[in-house]
């Protein structure tokens, strides 16, 4: 049947059709929908792992037990899972194992723009790189064949435009591969030095065979062109831009296998054209390979390593006509993402700003606490870095910053990689105050369950990890819970914990307002006679409040009656319905 599917849904469909049995992933834009879509197939066991390393090791365990498995993540997730990655490259697999990784050129939703293809090269693993949904489905299925044929995990590289574009796919039937019986094979699966040293040559030999395979792999193909003055090597979404602007004019070598690359195919192609050009987003990965083969070409000297490409960019760089539009002459105010009206993070960040604290931040919806007027975050690096970072910060400051510094981290992020940092705080004794922003969901990536929510990926009730008990077990004696809608309570708790002579955890607890089960209150109204236009209510950056003609106004389509603004009004001008 022909349907429209997101690239991510097509990967999930590929998993289903290939008979994948176990999926364990951690969410991350733009990879998340692969696992959400996989979970809709009853034949697939799918789960959210607490982080990518756990997800990858779980998928490896499933492969070891003889069933086809998958784990999915965003580009930075592969950094977290890099440890198992480099060693399962040595062991190989039992049943097929595929690792999905989605890059985010243009940083639509990411903290950096790293290029995952380097991991394939560094770990000496094959990587497939689809350019649309149909390929996403086909490559996923093929990845399992490759994985089992060459005894290797296979990387499947997606990117924002492939993951989040719908295009036409033709779906097929599921195959149900017989489970591969598990056999104990010490020399293959126990990677201690004596064994690993014998596996390394296997890895090198396998890479040679894969490079051989790449020469005839149907996913690497030459598309003929009429004008051989230019020949373009390209892949992924860049291929689509090239075809969009060049049609069949220039010959194109499309690489569907990002690693290893086919030497002969590339040399023959290069020899058939006058000017070899490599069009690829982010790093000059194909380019470096071509240069190592001694080929001269146009690459990153022309096509930037920064951001996303588009058809106009490719047209301009190739010297082809570029369409133009007309803009209005004035600057249009930006519309950056904002914390939602009623977001429980808001009250807490207001308090941090008011107390003028140094705040080591982390990654999640709450990173928006960095934006004015809240402006209450000093650093954001990667998941977990707030909790580990504050420890080093306080140690280095030698007591100077104690009582003035906090770390903030979300519930999902804390479970992902905040716990180990907290262990360090307890063990090596710094006087840190860590605030866990517990909104009972993984908000940023679109509401995924996590170990603290009490529900699993399929939405069924399951064991709920209790944050208070966990923090105490780790060795933190001072653990308390506050309601971020109650500003006085937040302020008192933060002051007390900062004054305490030992480490502490404050759990700021209230579920995300966008969760279906959360009951919101009716919108507030402004008593225009009482409002003096002092703008105190504007200090929380709520999208529902604005001041016009010297008076505050509440947008009733947005306001959910959280009452945080009301606590800031000294003139009693903000009212809940029914209040006098």
């Amino acid at each position: 049947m022909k349907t429209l599917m997101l690239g991510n849904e097509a990967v999930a469909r590929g998993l289903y059709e290939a008979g994948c049995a176990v999926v364990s992933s951690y969410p991350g834009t733009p990879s998340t929908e692969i696992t959400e879509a996989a979970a809709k197939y009853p034949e697939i066991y799918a789960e959210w792992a607490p982080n990518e390393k756990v997800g990858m090791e779980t998928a490896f365990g499933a492969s070891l037990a003889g069933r086809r498995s998958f784990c999915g993540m965003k580009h930075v997730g592969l950094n977290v899972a890099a440890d198992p990655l480099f060693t399962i490259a040595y062991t190989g697999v039992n049943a097929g194992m595929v690792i999905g990784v989605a890059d985010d050129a243009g940083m639509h939703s990411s903290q950096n723009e790293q290029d995952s293809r380097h991991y394939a090269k560094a770990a000496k693993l094959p990587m497939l790189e689809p350019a649309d949904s149909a390929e996403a489905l086909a490559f996923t299925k093929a990845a399992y064949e490759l994985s089992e044929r060459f005894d290797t995990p296979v990387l499947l590289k997606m990117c924002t435009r492939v993951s989040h574009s719908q295009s036409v796919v033709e779906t097929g039937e599921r195959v149900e591969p017989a489970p591969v019986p598990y056999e104990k094979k010490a020399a293959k699966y126990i990677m201690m030095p004596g064994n690993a040293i014998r596996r390394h040559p296997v890895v090198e030999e396998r890479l040679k065979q894969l490079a051989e395979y790449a020469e005839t792999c149907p996913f690497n193909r030459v598309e003929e062109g009429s004008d051989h003055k230019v020949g373009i090597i390209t892949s992924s979404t860049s291929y689509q831009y090239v075809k969009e602007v060049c049609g069949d004019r220039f010959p194109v070598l499309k690489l569907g296998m990002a690693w290893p690359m086919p030497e002969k195919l590339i040399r023959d192609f290069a020899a058939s054209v006058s000017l070899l050009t490599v069009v690829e987003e982010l790093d000059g990965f194909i380019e470096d390979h071509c240069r190592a083969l001694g080929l001269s070409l146009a690459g990153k000297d022309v096509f930037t390593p920064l951001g996303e490409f588009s058809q106009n960019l490719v047209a301009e760089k190739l010297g082809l006509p570029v369409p133009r539009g007309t803009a209005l002459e004035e600057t249009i105010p930006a519309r950056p993402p904002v914390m939602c009206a009623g977001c429980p993070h808001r009250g807490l960040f207001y308090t941090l700003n008011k107390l003028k604290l140094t705040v080591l931040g982390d990654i999640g919806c709450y990173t928006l606490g960095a934006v004015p007027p809240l402006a209450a975050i000093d650093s954001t690096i990667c998941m977990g870095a707030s909790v580990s970072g504050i420890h080093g910060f306080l140690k280095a400051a030698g007591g100077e910053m104690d009582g003035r510094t906090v770390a903030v981290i979300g519930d999902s992020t804390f479970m992902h990689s905040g716990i180990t940092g907290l262990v360090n705080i307890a063990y090596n004794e710094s006087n840190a105050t860590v605030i866990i922003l517990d909104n009972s969901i993984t908000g940023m990536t679109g509401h995924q369950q996590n170990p603290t929510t009490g529900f699993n990926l399929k939405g069924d009730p399951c064991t709920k990890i209790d944050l208070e008990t966990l923090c105490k077990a780790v060795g933190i004696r001072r653990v308390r819970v506050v309601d971020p809608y109650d500003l006085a309570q937040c302020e008192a708790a933060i002051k007390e914990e900062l004054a305490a002579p030992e480490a502490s955890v404050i759990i700021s607890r209230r579920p995300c307002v966008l969760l279906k089960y959360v009951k919101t209150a009716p919108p507030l109204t402004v008593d225009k006679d009482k409002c003096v236009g002092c703008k105190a209510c504007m200090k929380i950056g709520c999208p529902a409040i604005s001041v016009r003609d010297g008076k505050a106004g509440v947008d009733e389509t947005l306001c959910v009656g959280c009452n945080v603004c009301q606590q800031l009004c000294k003139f009693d001008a903000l009212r809940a319905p029914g209040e006098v």
Partner: protein
Amino acid sequence: METKNMMIVGVGGQGTLLASKLFGRLLLDQGYDVKVSEVHGMSQRGGSVVTYVRWGDRVCSPVIDKGEADFILSFELLEAARWMEFLRPGGRIITNTQQINPMPVITGAAEYPQALEKRMAEAGVALDAMDALSLAEEAGSSKAVNLVLLGRLSRYFDWPEETWQQAITASVPEKFLELNRKAFHLGRNS
């Protein structure tokens, strides 16, 4: 057939994704090659959002670039102005006249530009502006702005209303079907 391009723009949370999903489905049913490029993640939180819909015999790029769009369907007035440069000469903007202040305007760091409709028209844009919010409320919910706008858009295509209504039935949960059908109808006949 040359590839046709439509952008759907608005503010995160306004329901632009349903509009593109529905329209994409309709195009597929008509036998076109189709690509729909969406935005997920960070910018969904009240930020400026854009979806690209492209259809034709063979569609390559999933995105639309400056000077290419045949239509821009805008859920908010400022967003229409923001993306105007993506319109091809002779293209058309269909926009909701609703204004939603972005954060820089709320905080007073910037002003919401005045007379945008007039100025876009003066810049040569074929502009079809409508109060989609009121019609959505008339249909039963302010959330149905997306279907009202799709209804208005439908007037620029030759397909009968039935074709659109089929795509609505296939894309919208049963519970909201009546509301959405009505919103579409109001938009189409506005």
